[in-house]
Structures are given as C-alpha cells and as structure tokens.
C-alpha cells in the first residue's frame, strides 16, 4: 500500500463530511452575516407568517408533510466491527431507525420513543424528521437527544466492546443535513 492509495481512498469520504468541512470557516464573518440575515429574515417572515396563518386558518390542518428521500448510510455491527450499507430512504428518524433496528438484528421490542434536536437550549425539532432545520446556523450548538427502549442498552456484564450503540449514533446523526455537536442516548 502506498500513500497515494490512501489519498485516493480519502477522496471517497462521504459527501456530507466533505461539504461540511469547509463550511465551518470564517467564524466571525459568518456570525456577523448570520446575525444580520436572521434579523432581516425575521422582519420579513413574521408578518408573512401572520398573514398566511390568518388565511389558512381552518384549512388542511391535518395535511401530512411530504418527506424528502435521500441516500442514508445504515451502520451495523458485523461480528464486532462496524460496517455500513447505503440505502435510499425517507429522511425521517423513525424510518431510518427501523431499518437500523432490522439490520442490527433487533426485534420489535427495540423502539425509538423520542428524537429531539436541541439548539442552544431550545428544542428545534421534536418531530421524527430532523433531516433539515430551516433555521440552521452552523456556529450554533446542536445536541441530538434520542430516547430508545431499554432493549438496546449494552449488556454491561459482557467485557467485549459492543459497537451497537456506536452504529446507532452514526446512523441517527449521519443522515442529518448538519453536524451535531453532542449526542445523547436515553433508555426508557
């Protein structure tokens, strides 16, 4: 193996990581631009929102939001090692969790109860689709909190490293259109 082979292999890093790597730059300028943009957006959005909400009051309240589809990496434990498989799926945490559950050999007792994205102390997304945040700001601190059933908790009596929860983390944060700063898993 040569260094050139590694260089070539790095070239196949996943699209999101490549896209995000350079988006973190120019912090100060970005903070300034995003602050100004946020004020402008609020100034425009708030009046439009009120006008729209008055217009649509009582119409189509129960309409379902169409989910975007995309290529998602499902990580799974393959004999103690982490492996992945790319699948074309609806970008919803619930759907993705289901595929992950089956791929990792869990039965229906393994459930995803809650999927939340916390942005600087406020919950940005409490629904099961968290792929795209409309008010995403790269410099903000995002925490992904998921609550799953106890069936997924690692068996602490086994001394060998079990990568299952790592594959859950990689799958559930990997499909999001942004990089989260912190990830927590809770068992219920």
């Amino acid at each position, binding site marked *: 193996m040569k*260094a050139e082979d590694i*260089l*070539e292999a*790095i070239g*196949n890093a996943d*699209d999101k990581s*490549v896209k995000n*790597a350079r988006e973190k730059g120019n912090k100060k300028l970005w903070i300034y631009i995003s602050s100004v943009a946020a004020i402008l957006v609020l100034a425009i959005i708030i009046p439009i929102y009120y006008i729209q909400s008055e217009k649509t009051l009582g119409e189509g309240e129960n309409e379902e939001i169409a989910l975007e589809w995309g290529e998602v990496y499902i990580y799974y434990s393959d004999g103690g090692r982490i492996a992945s498989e790319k699948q074309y799926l609806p970008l919803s945490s619930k759907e993705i969790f289901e595929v992950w559950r089956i791929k990792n050999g869990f039965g229906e007792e393994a459930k995803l109860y809650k999927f939340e994205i916390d942005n600087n102390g406020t919950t940005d997304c409490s629904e099961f689709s968290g792929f795209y945040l409309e008010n995403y700001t790269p410099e903000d601190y995002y925490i992904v909190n998921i609550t799953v059933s106890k069936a997924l908790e690692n068996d602490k009596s086994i001394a060998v490293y079990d990568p299952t929860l*790592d594959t859950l983390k990689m799958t559930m944060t990997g499909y999001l259109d942004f990089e989260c700063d912190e990830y927590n898993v809770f068992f219920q």
Partner: protein
Amino acid sequence: MEDKKIVELYFQRSEKALEETALKYGKYCFSIAYSILNDNEDAEESVNDTYLDVWNSIPPHKPSVLSTFLGKITRRISIDKWRKRAADKRGGGEISLVLDELEECVFKGDTVEEEYSKEKLSEAVKLFIAQLPKTEKNVFICRYWYMDSVESICKRFSFSESKVKSMLKRTRDKLRKYLVEEEF
C-alpha cells in the same frame, strides 16, 4: 440557481447547465485543482475537464450533493494530471507535502504484503472518517481531501499552527493504527 435545477438542466442536455455550474462552482473547483497542481493553467484545464466529465456522467448519474460531486471529479482529475506531470518533474502544490504526511500511515512491517482491493481500502477509510469527532474530521478533510495548506486551515478554524499540526498528527496515527487493525 439551485443545485436541483442545475441537475435538471443536465438531464435536459441544456448547455446552460455548464454555464450555471461554472458560475456557481467554478471557483470551488479551481481552488481544489490549484491546491493540487499549484499552476493556474493546469488548474484551469482540470476544471474544464471536470465540466466535460460531469456533462458525460449526468445523466444517468443523479448526484445528491452537486458541490462534492464536482469536487470529487476535480480532485480525481487533478491528481491524475499531477501524476502525469510528476513523471517528468515532481513538486509543487500541497499534494507533495500531503503524500509525505500520509506515508506515515503506511504500515512498513516485515510481513508479506497483504493483497487488498482499493474498494475495501476506500470503504475502510470512509468508515474511519465517519467515526472521527467533528473538529478532527473537518481539519482532516480540509488537509487531505481539499489539500488546503496548514496555514489556511489555521485561518479557517482560528487555530494555532501547532494545534493544527498536532491534531493532524494524532489523526494520522489513529489512521495508521486503524489500517493495521483492518489488515491493510
């Protein structure tokens, strides 16, 4: 213009697709090519070759992230061009430095060299990158994917030179260990 619309133009075989691509991503592609080749003319040529390659691959291919799709093609073409140029005279660009650094990740034991496929290596490296913490991952990709200079990475992340260098060194060590474990 939105990426989706640009991709639609490719599907319609409209030459406007190329214009819009150049307008939106010309500088991005050029910066990747220039980092590798360190030559304006060669970098321009790589970017033009990228447009041709994209024109020929969409359709049937439908990229999910157009920017990285273009970036990957530019990177591949530029590395190929660098290889051809290196046959005459090596040097120039960040790629020489990057390759010297990545040499550390190559296992040089006495064992018989294992057969490995490039596909397997590619998959293993992809997994390695996916598992890195966010900041390490970004710095690693800037250096070894975009081949940004250490100086520009320092500016981008507001880090000192020693911090960037030590972070890269630690990640290379991790990669080396990981590749040995994965039997490459």
